[in-house]
């Protein structure tokens, strides 16, 4: 049976969401397995959101923000990085492969990069298979 992954992407308003828009303007194609949730800053992404998504059935979660040093709010992306690192450990403990969580920096000008990042991430999640695919006890 064919399976399409459910992937949640958090995109910060100033850089990555703009990058996603720019990908569209330039018609850079990527797989439709992702849904974008806009937040003002990647530092707004609560680790609880990520756990919630996995609990609700997401196969992958990608947090995207401004390049380090570019944050519209000075250092929100460093905060995001720290939280994602904590989540890598936590997901590992929970038995959720930590590769299912991604963190990427994409600027508003990087439409191509946005498409590439999504394509790669979707490819990775497809290779990993569904998040409950035989991983259960």
């Amino acid at each position: 049976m064919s399976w399409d992954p459910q992937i949640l992407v958090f995109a910060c308003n100033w850089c990555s969401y703009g990058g996603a828009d720019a990908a569209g303007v330039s018609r850079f194609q990527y797989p439709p397995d992702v849904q974008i949730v806009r937040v003002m800053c990647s530092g707004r992404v609560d680790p609880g959101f990520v756990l919630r998504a996995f609990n609700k059935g997401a196969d992958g979660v990608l947090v995207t923000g401004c390049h380090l040093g570019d944050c519209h709010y000075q250092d929100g992306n460093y905060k995001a990085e720290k939280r994602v690192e904590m989540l890598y450990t936590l997901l590992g403990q929970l038995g959720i492969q930590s590769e299912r969580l991604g963190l990427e920096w994409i600027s508003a000008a990087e439409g191509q990069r946005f498409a590439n990042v999504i394509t790669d991430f979707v490819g990775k999640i497809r290779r990993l298979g569904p998040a409950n695919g035989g991983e259960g006890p």
Partner: protein
Amino acid sequence: MTLQDSMQRTNAQMCYSCGKCTAHCPVVRVGASESPREMVERAQLGRDLTNDDLVWNCLTCKLCQNYCPEDVDFIGFIREVRGLSRDNGGKPEYTHGEMMQTMARIFASGKFKQNKLEWLDRSKTSHDGEVALWIGCGPYVDTALKDHGSDQVNISNAALDVLNMLGIKPRVLDEEVCCGHDALWIGEDETFEALMDKNLEVISRSEITKLVFTCPEGYEVMKHEYPDMGIELAHISEVVADAVDDGVATFDKMEKKVTYQDPCRLGRFLGIYDQPRKVLEHIPGIELVEMEHSGKRSRCCGVSAWINCNQNSKRMQMERLEEAENAAPTLVTNCPKCLTHFNCVKNEDGFDKEIEFMDWTVLVSKTLRGV
């Protein structure tokens, strides 16, 4: 289930509004807008309790029940009202982005095989012994709340040392999942039942005869809420106290003046007051000084089940720590969550106490010198 059923089951309908519960309730003391008595009265009048202040702010510390002349199981009532409230769209104020609850739900779903024992030194454990040590949620909490000073794995490690010292190489059940205590107490019955079923299966398959806990919550919920598993359940302080009674435990000297925090689950729920004290008093150099409220009257660490931590919680904690500071420079707790909560407040603005926190098991592991 209806409110009426709950009231019958918990004796709430017997309440004759004497107000003793209110007088003792720690949440009321620091400023709750409603008292246990008022809530029960509203229930007797058939009012909707979904958004009542105490539904989620009650600590379920059971202090009120010490004194109730009508034997109302108020916290049992609260637990059931929480389930009813949920059905009406009510929910608690989850702390830490709802991470703890979400994790419990993830375990309950059974979709993932957890991997929380990376830190474990397997040489301290056995594969087929009859005694097992319950690990619980410490490893996750430590990861998620590192910034808040959570240090619970340390307690499990200390327990392994203590048991080894007493000649026990315990098993660790790799497949144990969350005990479900918090899910049960926040009215998530489905989550609790799913977790319980998994643990029942894991424990029965393991063929152990005794399960030792460092966390009173796991102990309490398995003793009172799980069906009888036909095995012995014990808190680590009971195990050590037995060894002291048998005259087989010896201790190094430790010069320390300490006071002891009775965790509500270990104390009022399980009646274990004396054993931990007995061990402390047996350690040469330890001077145990009781706080103003101790034993059955002991006051709560301020938060329960990772919900509704707030202004009032901080007030309770500061008051409790004031008592502790007046008693001794070191506060010994016997519940990993108490310790996490106290460590958290220690890092906060406005903390002005000169006090050290120490877990009971960790303290014992530092002085116990074996049989």
